[in-house]
């Protein structure tokens, strides 16, 4: 068989059913193999869209996402998606065509050193130089993407290797993920837990990636330790749990930030002390001892020294740590703060208040709905005001914060999940335009994706910072010249309507949810609305601003 055929049959063998991509000269043999190869290929309208769709597919399903692009510009267009997957530890495999081996290094047409470009934004990358190594490389690529701390892997395949007759010999050796704990460490960790009077769980995206949500919830139910989550940890502990305090950090809840500030033991589970989480690092949980649990040894003691660390699979560690504690006073204290600072939507709004709309949307959606959002104020409002019971239902570009993520990630999620799971995009007027061409993918595939476009005619999050920290000098953040989004949607056969008043919200949400096929709900909001509370740059999380 040709190398290209081997690739397609290997992908099927890996259990891959859907791939996302865009053809071109140096990947033509692969597209020829895809023509009748029995894999579903989704034609995205930009390779960045293909990368984000693969990412959304992976995040919504827990499987590896696959994207395919041609050499040169096709491959460079993937880079932002790979970087996003790298920052958020998402397993994707990117296949890129490369010019023929003989002309590599001659500045051939559409030649680019993609292996060189990949070094900073993938977990690992390969260029296939020997046709008989192709199968081996593919297997390694999937193993690396999934194992240990997951991440993106790129495989660059020269065109001659795609065309060559190949052998499918598999000999595999990859590094085993490092496990760095033993009974003694576990005992020390249990001791820390037993001695703590005011412990807090700081839960990150690692829990979902390790598929350890059930183990975490078992641990939480048994110990009763109050918890906070990162942006990527949302859904690992439902807000309905009595001591779940919500998201922490820059736009976290006041209860979460205050309880972390006062805790005496911080139990870090699959999280990495991102600066958006910690605020000023020196004042982050500064009186606490730290128990850090993570699969990646490089996260231990990177930004905060731990007292005890357990490096390994959360699925094994959490059950082994489960004990009962008596921390009633502290639980009550945390619970009181949660109630005291709970969100309030009671004000009589005339114009639309996005947090309330998103909360209403959340209540109308079933718990198996996937919500994919873009980046900005609306993203923070999704994190704050929508409720999630699984991390794979909340797709948000967290570590890289990439505008343009929402729509293609939702397209990936749509392919990953069954018809019974609604898929909703919450985007902003700025972000939406960054991958707006993916409306073409929705049209082509007739995808049932609902889009809520929160339109403040601003690059709102940047505008908010200009207002608060740059003397209201609104440099290049005013978008009063936005396109007519309803007309734009109709060009792609997507039903759409605009709402401007709070009274319109409930019926419009119902119309959207009950519509057949794709729907765009264009929501006009006041440009002055800000995300609160907020930890100003350089401040301690205990000092949150709550108004201008």
């Amino acid at each position, binding site marked *: 068989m040709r190398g290209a055929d081997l690739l397609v049959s290997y992908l099927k063998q890996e259990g891959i059913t859907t791939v996302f991509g865009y053809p071109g000269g140096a990947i033509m043999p692969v597209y020829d193999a895809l023509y009748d190869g029995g894999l579903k290929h989704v034609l995205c309208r930009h390779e960045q869209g293909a990368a984000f769709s693969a990412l959304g597919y992976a995040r919504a399903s827990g499987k590896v996402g696959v994207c395919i692009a041609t050499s040169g510009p096709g491959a460079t267009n993937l880079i932002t998606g790979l970087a996003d997957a790298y920052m958020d530890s998402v397993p994707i495999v990117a296949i890129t065509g490369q010019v023929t081996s003989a002309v590599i290094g001659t500045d051939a047409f559409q030649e680019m050193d993609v292996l060189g470009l990949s*070094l*900073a934004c993938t977990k*690992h990358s390969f260029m296939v*130089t020997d046709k008989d190594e192709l199968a081996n490389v593919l297997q390694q690529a999937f193993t690396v993407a999934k194992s240990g701390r997951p991440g993106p892997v790129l495989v660059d395949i020269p065109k001659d290797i795609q065309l060559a007759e190949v052998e499918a010999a598999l000999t595999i050796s990859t590094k085993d993920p*490092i496990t760095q704990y033993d009974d003694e460490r576990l005992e020390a960790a249990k001791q820390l837990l037993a001695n703590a009077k005011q412990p807090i769980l700081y839960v990150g995206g690692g829990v979902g990636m390790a598929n350890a949500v059930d183990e975490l919830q078992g641990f939480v139910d048994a110990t009763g330790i109050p918890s906070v989550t990162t942006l990527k940890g949302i859904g690992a502990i439902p807000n309905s749990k009595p001591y779940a305090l919500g998201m922490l950090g820059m736009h976290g809840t006041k209860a979460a930030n205050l309880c972390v500030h006062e805790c005496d033991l911080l139990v870090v589970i699959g999280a990495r002390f991102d600066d958006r989480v910690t605020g000023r690092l020196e004042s982050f949980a500064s009186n606490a001892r730290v128990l850090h649990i993570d699969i990646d040894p490089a996260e231990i*003691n990177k930004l905060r020294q731990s007292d005890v660390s357990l490096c390994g699979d959360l699925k094994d560690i959490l059950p082994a740590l489960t004990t009962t504690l008596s921390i009633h006073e502290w639980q009550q204290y945390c619970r009181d703060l949660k109630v005291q600072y709970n969100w309030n939507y009671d004000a009589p709004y005339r114009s639309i208040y996005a947090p309330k709309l998103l909360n209403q949307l959340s209540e109308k959606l079933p718990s198996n709905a996937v919500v994919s959002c873009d980046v900005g104020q609306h993203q923070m409002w999704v994190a704050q005001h929508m409720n999630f019971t699984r991390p794979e239902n909340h797709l948000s570009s967290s570590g890289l914060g990439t505008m343009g993520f929402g729509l293609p990630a939702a397209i990936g999620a749509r392919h990953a999940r069954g018809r019974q799971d609604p898929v909703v995009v919450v985007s902003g007027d700025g972000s939406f335009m960054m991958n707006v061409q993916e409306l073409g993918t929705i049209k082509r595939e007739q995808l049932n994706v609902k889009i809520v476009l929160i339109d403040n005619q601003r690059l709102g999050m940047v505008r908010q910072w200009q207002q608060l920290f740059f003397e209201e000098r609104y440099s290049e953040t005013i978008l009063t010249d936005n396109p007519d989004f309803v007309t734009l949607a109709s060009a792609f056969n997507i039903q759409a309507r605009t709402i401007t008043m709070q009274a319109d919200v409930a019926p419009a949400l119902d119309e959207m949810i009950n519509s057949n096929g794709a729907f765009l709900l264009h929501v006009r909001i006041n440009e002055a609305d800000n995300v609160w509370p907020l930890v100003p740059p350089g401040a301690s999380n205990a000092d949150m601003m709550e108004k201008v």
Partner: protein
Amino acid sequence: MSLAQHQLKLVVNQSPEVLERVLRVVRHRGYKIDQLNWQHEDGELILTVSSQRALHLLTNQLAKLVDVKDVTELNMMQTSKSA
């Protein structure tokens, strides 16, 4: 703060881009390369690096690379130069 100098021995796979991978991590994580010695046949790289940052921040990142099989610290010297 004084610069600490460290000598590291890495055993790596002989992939053509392995040096780039290692050197990129060293630079990006905030270490300066003072000296290096590369034996391709043995896949052995000896690096002398200096930084104000603690060494584990580098060795942990290097050990994570798929192409790096082993990282050991050979010795450590404190230089009197300040940054």
